């Protein structure tokens, strides 16, 4: 039983970020503040499953966040808001068309490429994947929506459905 759980969580970590929908469908009318990327494909709902042992995978509605955020940099720190800056080419596909038009997001690097799912070394100063996810959420969701930061139940209210294993443990 334990092996099965370990295997499942390992798989969950491997495929921690898996876009479910939205491969071809642009955000359409939902995006108000942020214009949709010209050539890019923005995910609508993302399933985050790297902590599926305790909780069921989190369904993150990317589209609704796009409409609420004032810009990508609210959550994605790749545009130099005090974080490590990357070379443009690491994220943007730079080709002839990109130079003709303005450079649009062609590829946003998944958090897990830099933020490791395993516990990071303290000297790197870079948070692990779980912490990176949570900090991105806590920037706004703390104390107001879902009472995260005021009540430990806020985690469940906000995102986390207790997983099958957690439910099993609760039963006497």
């Amino acid at each position: 039983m334990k092996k099965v759980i370990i295997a499942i969580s390992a798989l969950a970590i491997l495929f921690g970020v898996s876009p479910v929908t939205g491969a071809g469908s642009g955000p359409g009318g939902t995006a108000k503040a942020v214009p949709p990327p010209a050539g890019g494909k923005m995910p609508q709902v993302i399933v985050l499953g790297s902590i599926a042992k305790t909780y069921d995978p989190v369904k993150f509605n990317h589209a609704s966040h796009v409409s609420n955020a004032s810009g990508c940099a609210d959550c994605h720190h790749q545009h130099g808001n005090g974080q490590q800056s990357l070379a443009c080419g690491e994220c943007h596909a730079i080709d002839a068309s990109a130079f003709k038009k303005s450079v649009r997001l062609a590829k946003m690097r998944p958090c897990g490429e830099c933020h490791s799912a395993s516990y990071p070394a303290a000297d790197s100063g870079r948070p692990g994947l779980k912490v990176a996810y949570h900090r991105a959420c806590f920037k706004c969701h703390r104390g107001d929506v879902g009472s995260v930061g005021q009540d430990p139940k806020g985690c469940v209210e906000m995102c986390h459905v207790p997983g099958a294993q957690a439910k099993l443990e609760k039963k006497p």
Partner: protein
Amino acid sequence: MKEEGNGKNKGAVSRRELLQAMAVVGGATLIGSSTEAFADRKLSGWPDRRGMLTDLTECVGCRTCEKACNQANRLPEPEVPFDEKSVFDNKRRPTASAYTVVNRYDNPKSSGQPLYRKVQCNHCNEPGCASACPVKAYTKTPEGPVLYNADVCFGCRYCMVACPFMVPAYDYESALEPRIVKCTMCHGRVANGGIPACAEACPAGAVTFGKRSDLVALARNKVRNNPDRYLDHIYGEYEVGGTSWMYISGVPFGQVDFPTTLPEKPLVEQAKGFLSAVPLVLTIWPALLTMCYAATQNKEDKE
């Protein structure tokens, strides 16, 4: 008459000198052994020792660390579930069934975002508990954690008095097998290359595990890069000679119940002068008083 008296005095002095010499020698051996027993040593020889850094500005009070600690140490199920916020109504201390607890405080900067402080053993560099323990039940390991051995403990609870952070808890359930309970910094997990359960579980990255020297550097970086967010103080870097568990905060540490009057010298230094005098006093005083008694007895006999 006079001569006789002088002669007697001479004899008394030489006897006293002999006793004094014996006492000094005896006391010196006692002190020698006791200073070795204390964790009073320079720790620069352990550069790789581990530590923890709690960032009070990151903690959201989810109590995941408490739950992870409970499971990792196979502690009994708590009376109140871990997702219950009513526990925040009182300020808690670690107990025999909870090595770590999270307390809530009002945030003077923002009322909607209360402050949380995780409490557990700070694994002092030169632990007061270890210096107070008469049977050496505490060991400061080169890896960082301060460990406790229940096999030699006889339940005097001096360590509970000696701890400046009021951490060691007593297991009152068993009268015959006295047992102190406190955080071990998950020594077993770390020895196998693991991460302390609380640090691994914390979703907010409020608890970081690593080499103490790395954590000091990390804390300094955080404070330097975010001067508005943090106070320029790493709690535990120097307090009571330095602790393995350190803290950075956005509000003065006194506001979240950290003891703020602790000296930078290790506590054992404070007590050493007194403690090393105890064997001397115990050896000299009986001899001295016996001599006084003998001297007065002789006089009475003569009269």
